């Protein structure tokens, strides 16, 4: 397969890796020995891979880059609220989660006893009994 024309029709397939192993090997062997085809291939490859177009690499203008950079800076600038939100949403490893859950469960189980120990209820004194059935006798002054 030394014919340049045949090789050149296969350059695209070679570049996009749609040719079989035999064709691939044939193209490579030919490119190694044929400067003209190699130049053609490199030109095609540069254009397809967008390494350059009309001699320069195309990318957004400097103004567009600065506009995007500014937007990113504003959107992701760290603020206390964002830091807190990130901290709350941070991924927690499983073992840490389980440990935290165990601590919460133990605390919940012992909380009533602990509360009682810390704040004992005052001893209830026997209240004076007041008989409300009879009207309170007031001392009468008998003249």
């Amino acid at each position, binding site marked *: 397969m030394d014919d340049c*024309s045949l090789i*050149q029709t296969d350059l695209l397939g070679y570049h996009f890796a749609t040719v079989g192993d035999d064709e691939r090997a044939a193209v490579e062997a030919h490119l190694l020995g044929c400067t003209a085809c190699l130049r053609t291939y490199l030109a*095609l490859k540069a254009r397809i891979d*967008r390494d350059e177009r009309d001699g320069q*690499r195309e990318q*957004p203008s400097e103004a567009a880059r600065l506009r995007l950079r500014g937007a990113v800076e504003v959107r992701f600038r760290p603020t206390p609220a964002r830091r807190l939100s990130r901290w709350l949403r941070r991924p927690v490893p499983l073992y840490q989660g389980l440990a935290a859950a165990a601590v919460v469960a133990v605390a919940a189980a012992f909380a009533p006893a602990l509360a009682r120990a810390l704040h004992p209820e005052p001893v209830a004194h026997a209240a004076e009994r007041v008989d409300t059935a009879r009207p309170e006798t007031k001392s009468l002054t008998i003249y």
Partner: protein
Amino acid sequence: MDSDEALYARVKHGDIRAFDELYARYATRLFGFLRPQLPGRPDAEDVFHEAMMATLESDEVAFDRGSFRTWLYRIARNLVLNRLRSRGRGEHALLKLGAADDEPAPPADDRVAHGQLLRALDGAVARLPSPLSDVYHLRSSGLSYEEMATVLGIPLGTLKSRMNQMVNVLREELKPWTTAR
């Protein structure tokens, strides 16, 4: 060198230098993907901006290698389609645009001149129908077959078949420039 995903995480923590690095990685590739699909440079710059912002704001990027790039191109492609649809310029308009750029027949004495061959390639790419154009541009942006299949939401087998089809179409279109040596 940090992975794209590590840089993405740093940007989300407010590290603007990480953004600069991500931008440097994708400025040429992503813009080169967008530019031929949109009618004007300002359109391509707008979509580039929107795609980068949407990807950075998204929480969908996982931390396995390649996920940032896949997500970025998926969003960019959707934005291109939306923009073309909203302007009433679909595939037909693109095909028309491509047809308008028809290359003149190559001169017999210099059929493989690189300049002409490359212009012929540009014209042929512009005339590719949408599904084949998608695979051409994604592959040109350096995406692997797996990443392209994810971006396009199609099985790997379908993608490979489209790649073959795309290469065959381009090969036929470029034949006049490559066979007569």
